[in-house]
């Protein structure tokens, strides 16, 4: 009795180009050969190279940067000679205290919740793949898809700081400058975006192929 198994590109000695989608024949022994897509010139890989190791490295780097991003001030506001520094969280509290709820919620989600959820989800996906988990691969792929799509919106706080710095530049009267936390936070956003790009969701499905 034969069981109908879905056929993957790897199982058929094929590889799909990650840029242009062309399906190219890749012999099984072509392990260390540098194969290039004949159509668009991108390097072909069956799976993203060293996906787990690289994603772990980026996730750990982002976790470390997440601390200064939240502890150090992202803006320094000087009005009439006195300077007040604000972190991401104290900025949110300021907005709430002044009744600007929608903006407070936006910044809270985009700057605090989204980066944290991204890191938690990526760590979960990395460990589930390492454990060759077969639990709900469809839902785990969906989780990955959301993580990848939502990450860019964390940049909103960096842009708010950019605009505040540009507008509130009135010399003695009032000046806003970016603090060191802004650099760390920008780092968190960029590194988590790279981490999501480095993770290969096909690894989730590889565990399904090898069941008895």
């Amino acid at each position: 009795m034969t069981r109908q198994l879905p056929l993957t590109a790897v199982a058929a000695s094929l590889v799909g180009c990650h840029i242009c989608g062309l399906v190219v024949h890749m012999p099984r022994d072509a392990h260390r050969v540098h194969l290039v897509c004949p159509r668009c010139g991108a390097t072909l890989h069956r799976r993203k190279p060293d996906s787990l190791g690289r994603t772990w490295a980026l996730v750990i780097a982002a976790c470390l940067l997440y601390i200064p991003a939240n502890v150090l001030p992202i803006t320094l506001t000087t009005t009439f000679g006195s300077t007040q520094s604000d972190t991401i969280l104290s900025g949110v509290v300021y907005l709430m205290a002044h009744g600007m709820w929608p903006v407070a919620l936006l910044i809270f989600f985009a700057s605090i919740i989204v980066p944290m959820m991204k890191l938690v989800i990526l760590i979960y996906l990395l460990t589930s793949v390492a454990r060759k988990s077969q639990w709900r691969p469809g839902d785990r792929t969906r989780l990955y898809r959301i993580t990848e799509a939502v990450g860019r919106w964390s940049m909103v706080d960096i842009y708010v700081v950019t605009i505040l710095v540009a507008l509130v530049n009135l010399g003695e009267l009032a000046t806003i400058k970016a603090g060191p936390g802004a650099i760390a936070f920008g780092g968190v956003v960029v590194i988590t975006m790279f981490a999501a790009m480095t993770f290969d969701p096909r690894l989730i499905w590889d565990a399904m192929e090898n069941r008895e």
Partner: protein
Amino acid sequence: MTTDALIACHECDLLHRISELPVGSAASCSRCGAVLYRQKRNSLDRTLTMVITGLILFVIANSYPFLSFKMEGIVQETTLLTGVRLFYDSGMHALALLVVLTTVVLPLAELLGLLYVLLPLKLERVPWKLGSIFRFVRSIEPWGMMEVFMLGILASVVKLAQMASIIPGISMYAFAALIVVIAAAAASLDPRIVWERVEMPP
């Protein structure tokens, strides 16, 4: 050796046979549900229109002040690049680079790259190095973040509105329109119409 009739799902690697779809519909992976490709209506013409419109709006958006800030009689005007210059001047080079790349350089590179690819194709010609250049356009796509910048503008306007009066400039309207046009260009582009024109060694 290549296999034209097949596509491998980019999220789970399952092989699918490519078939003609009714216009406006999408083919998704039978196992993980990822969208494999979409059949777009009149993709080349629509995308090219949006790209040319986008380039005109881009020039306007970057040429005029986009917000004015009025506080105790002092008026401060800014363009898109004012904040970037101030970051750079205060030694925050990485931050300046991040903002200028994601809001100005990469969106412009994407529009120019699409124009370079699509205009000759419209005129039945194949541009030089089509494959590599379209690959570049596709890989910078996630890093253009103008729509996020727009949200940032709205958030800062709300935040500053209590301290002072904020007056939107001409470029603000151009910028808002630009975001819609860029989204429309992305929605109408079917990358397959470009890839199938790339000449491959036999």
